[in-house]
């Protein structure tokens, strides 16, 4: 390699690729007219380009992508078909309550209600189940006797009404 080849040779790639500046093009062009070795190098680079690109171009020209799109569509559809777990998750995630994440406080409230239920039931419990044994009506007073089951023991209640229809206060 001659000393004068050094700079043009470095620029040969840019020159071939059309990336050289006008000044660089002039420098390389002038040198190539005088130097056969650098001309051979440029030709070698061009030949290499042909060897690499031609088979690709030919293959691409012959290709009409007959089934590729169908395969892509099929693959996308197959991937979109959810498993039962995914579909369940999706269904749940579609619920507006769950989507808004209201379920966290809702769950907390539900737990509180369950925990407080025995106390609430004690306070608001209805009278124990009772079965009427005797009911006696007269002109002035009515008497009702019934058995009330509260826990393991059974209580007998005698309820005296002063007038018929007044059942508000047992005595």
């Amino acid at each position: 390699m001659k000393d004068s080849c050094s700079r043009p040779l470095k620029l040969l790639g840019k020159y071939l690729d059309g990336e050289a500046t006008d000044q660089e093009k002039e420098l390389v062009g002038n040198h190539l007219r005088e130097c056969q070795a650098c001309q051979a190098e440029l030709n070698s680079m061009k030949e290499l380009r042909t060897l690499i690109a031609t088979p690709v171009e030919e293959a691409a020209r012959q290709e009409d992508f007959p089934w590729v799109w169908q395969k892509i569509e099929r693959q996308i559809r197959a991937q979109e078909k959810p498993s039962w777990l995914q579909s369940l998750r999706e269904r749940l995630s579609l619920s507006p309550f769950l989507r808004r994440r209201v379920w966290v406080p809702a769950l907390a409230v539900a737990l509180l209600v369950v925990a407080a239920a025995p106390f609430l039931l004690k306070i608001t419990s209805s009278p124990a189940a009772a079965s009427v044994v005797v009911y006696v009506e007269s002109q002035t007073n009515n008497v009702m006797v019934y058995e009330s089951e509260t826990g393991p023991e059974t209580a007998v209640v005698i309820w005296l009404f002063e007038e018929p229809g007044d059942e508000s206060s047992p005595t």
Partner: protein
Amino acid sequence: MNQEEAELISRCQKGDQEALKEIFDRYREKVYRIAYGVVRHREDALDIVQEVFVKLYRSIGNYRGQSSFYTYVYRMAMNTAIDFTRRRKKFTASSLDEEGAFQPPDVPEKRPEAILIDKELEEKVNGAMAKLPEDQRAAVIYREVEGLSYQEMAQTMGCSIGTVMSRLHYGRKRLQKLLKGYMKEGGRA
């Protein structure tokens, strides 16, 4: 990126498969050329095209327009093709380990001499390309096959123009050296 392409991308991001089909029609040959440039094999290149567009459909939601769409597609095509060759190498190595070395058939296919020579040369080129480091191979394909400018290559490869020129220079030198004796012009390699 023009308005029409931006709309296509937006539609595709919303899951519109018709939009993907239009993107496929626009980019399929470019993707195929990159894939074929890397693997040098028709069926494999078509498999890569398929993989690229399925991946594109899955990941297009992440595309925010920070780079040109074609560089996004090129990068995905190149990465997929290189991953494919890595998988293939791994598979070939393991299957050879299991079944012993591959034995070529004794009798070659009957075909005209000229085609045989061309095929031989093509195989040499394919072999030489396969020996390049991945970044040099990518630079050579982007430039020699796709004709990208240095600026476009730098964007696609995520590096400086200086790095692009260096990869291209060393890639070409290596190929010239590997193919010496098969090329008409010897060059300085």
